């Protein structure tokens, strides 16, 4: 049964997205601007080819899936950090990433938003154990619960080449019964919930928005090809912040004029 029952307020697309997000805590959908995704991926390709000093680089369409042929695991983190630096220094990227999901972010988060300042690039080579992200909730480690992650993939993601998460209803069971899990390791909790987690199927050209309070993570990529993803957080500009602050971790992305006018308003004095 739909959770959103106000069709006069939300249009059908918006109501569907809100309904699904309230039920599961995540949504997968085609990007709203494919050209922006292509531009981000091309920049990433050019920077990666340069960083790897490849004499005869493969075409962009082959590069990302086959990165394990060009990147030795011992240099992976150095390459990754160099590419993150390039992503962070490109002033166009905030607008490009935002355009991938502008409507969906508006429906889920709001239209006055803050955006994370740093882009988290993940590269999971097949069989590489150095890039495992154990099961975790970002809200347990300093992010506020008023944030979502935009998860952008530059390849087709499925099974262990992708990430997993625990949908909202199952997640709430863990939170409400937390004492039972509080002495367990992340691996032990994963074993408890393994049969309930969802491995995200995300073809290239699609993105994910998920609430980072959901337990999530990845395992060793047991598939044959490499995964390349960027995760980036968005939140309501004026919603509470926790240890990740506005200015230091987030920057204003959209401030509407009436917020500026309202803030600057001075009560007349008699």
């Amino acid at each position, binding site marked *: 049964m739909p959770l959103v029952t106000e069709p006069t307020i939300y249009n059908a697309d918006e109501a569907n997205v809100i309904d699904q997000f309230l039920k599961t805590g995540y949504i997968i959908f085609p990007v709203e601007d494919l050209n922006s995704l292509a531009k981000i991926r091309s920049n990433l390709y050019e920077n990666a080819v340069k960083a790897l000093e490849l004499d005869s680089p493969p075409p962009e369409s082959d590069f990302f899936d086959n990165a394990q042929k060009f990147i030795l695991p011992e240099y992976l983190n150095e390459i990754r950090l160099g590419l993150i630096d390039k992503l962070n220094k490109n002033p166009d990227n905030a607008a490009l990433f935002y355009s991938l999901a502008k409507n969906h972010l508006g429906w889920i988060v709001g239209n006055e938003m*803050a955006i994370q300042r740093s882009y988290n690039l993940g590269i999971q080579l097949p069989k590489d154990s150095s890039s495992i992200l154990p099961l975790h909730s970002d809200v347990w480690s300093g992010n*506020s*619960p008023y944030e979502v992650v935009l998860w952008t993939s530059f390849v087709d993601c499925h099974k262990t080449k992708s990430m997993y998460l625990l949908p909202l209803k199952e997640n709430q069971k863990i939170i409400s019964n937390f004492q039972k899990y509080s002495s367990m390791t992340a691996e032990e909790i994963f074993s408890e919930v393994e049969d309930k987690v969802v491995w995200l199927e995300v073809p290239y050209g699609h993105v994910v928005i998920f609430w980072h309070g959901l337990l999530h993570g990845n395992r060793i990529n047991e598939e044959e090809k490499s995964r390349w993803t960027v995760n980036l957080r968005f939140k309501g*500009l*004026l*919603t*509470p*912040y*926790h240890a990740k*602050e*506005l*200015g*230091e971790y987030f*920057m*204003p992305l959209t*401030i509407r004029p009436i*917020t500026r006018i309202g*803030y600057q308003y001075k009560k007349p004095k008699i």
Partner: protein
Amino acid sequence: MNKNWRGYIFSREIGKQVVPQRVQNLVIRTCAERHGLTYLLSATEYYMDDCYMMLKSVLDELGQIEGIIFYSTHQLPSDTNERMKIYDKVLNSKKGLRFALEDLALFDEKDVKLIEDLKFCNELSAQAIDLDSYQESLN
């Protein structure tokens, strides 16, 4: 070119947190290194609320230095007019401010707008009730 930048730290709370002065100085020093600046020993603001005596002294020193590295934007005065006076003085002297924690800089009017956006958004969001307080209010 003069690359001397004076550090500026607090001996009172910064954004509702007490940050050890050693930590404030470490963050400022790292910022100076990252941008190739010469870091001059930090001026330490007095602990009394809304006191900016040391900052005023450093602003008077702008003729001899390139700018001031604050630990954070949270150290700027809460009074908008006071902040504007500081920005005017710095920009009229063709000098700059840096904020080490946020890795932000202020060199022109565009930067002033961004810093002011941060100040007012921080102020407004701090007034939004946080989850813990909300849940406590229900009990």
